[in-house]
């Protein structure tokens, strides 16, 4: 007579299933890339020459050569100093005649504010490494972001990212992001 088989204990299937579940829970990442958002200038229409006169003192030229060395306003500089120098150039706290001019403007929510007319001009060589280019871009954007944060902290008491939309627009108007990229030079070759 066939003996009745003992029932297999199924209580551990739950554990196995949980193990699989937690594996998939961990592996499932809605992996979202992050990046540095920028706008490209529109392509000029036709052959018009657009020579906008900008005073020398209002341009903050940053050159990167093919061996990833920086030349800022004619002087070699280390990347670590770039952010501070950029901020100093834009704000121009001591009204240095060599740094950016500012125009008094009435900005909604903030009131009269000295808006800098300074432009950061970035030019790189075709041989510059992308890593260096990104580091410089990042430092320049960081300079602007820090200035915006400082202004919004002093006016609204909150960092720029946490402001209402109208407040953000006001701060962005007071400190406009002006980074212009010149056509790259091909000095070093590949």
């Amino acid at each position, binding site marked *: 007579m066939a003996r009745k088989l003992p029932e297999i204990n199924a209580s551990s299937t739950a554990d196995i299933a949980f193990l699989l579940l937690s594996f998939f829970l961990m592996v499932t990442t809605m992996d*979202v890339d992050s990046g540095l958002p920028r706008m490209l200038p529109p392509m000029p229409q036709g052959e018009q020459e657009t020579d906008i006169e900008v005073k020398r003192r209002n341009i903050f030229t940053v050159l990167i050569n093919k061996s990833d060395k920086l030349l800022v306003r004619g002087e070699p500089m280390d990347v670590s100093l770039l952010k501070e120098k950029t901020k100093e150039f834009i704000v121009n706290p001591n009204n240095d005649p060599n740094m950016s001019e500012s125009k008094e403007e009435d900005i909604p929510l903030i009131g009269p504010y000295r808006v800098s007319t300074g432009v950061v001009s970035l030019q790189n060589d075709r041989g510059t490494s992308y890593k260096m*280019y990104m580091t410089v871009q990042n430092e320049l954007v960081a300079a602007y972001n820090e200035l915006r944060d400082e202004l919004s902290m002093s006016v609204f008491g909150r960092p720029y990212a946490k402001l209402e939309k109208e407040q953000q627009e006001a701060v962005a108007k007071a400190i406009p992001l002006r980074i212009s990229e010149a056509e790259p030079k091909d000095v070093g070759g590949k």
Partner: protein
Amino acid sequence: MATFSRKGKGEMPAISTASLPDIVFMTLFFFMVSTSFRETSLLVSIKSPEATEVDKLKKKTLVSYVYIGTPLPAYQTLFGTEPRIQLNDSFKSLDDIRDFIASEREALSEGERPLLTTALKIDEDTRMGIVTDVKQELRKASALKITYISRKKSK
């Protein structure tokens, strides 16, 4: 005569856990189905540069990717070791970028077209020459919103 046996003497009966695996399996299947892996397989090796001032990409449907990097070892005999452009699933040349942007635009609805962002995923050792060429092409295609993909570095 009916007799009621008083088993357990008033203790709570143990809750049956027999259906627990079913519930867990159901959850498991849900996650298995909803897990989507990277749609485009990279043909180039890319190590993104680090940056601090990064934003998360919003609205994935509005983002189209341009990859630039050195081809993976398997493709190096065919495509060499110089950085190449990858669009969708194949190596492309500079001239293809405009068509690529046009087709990406076509896929979006009328209202969303101006919001199209081009994400440039570029290896950090790439020289700026090819990057600049790509940027010029994007300007010609008037795809002006770009994002340089980078890894977030803590300050």
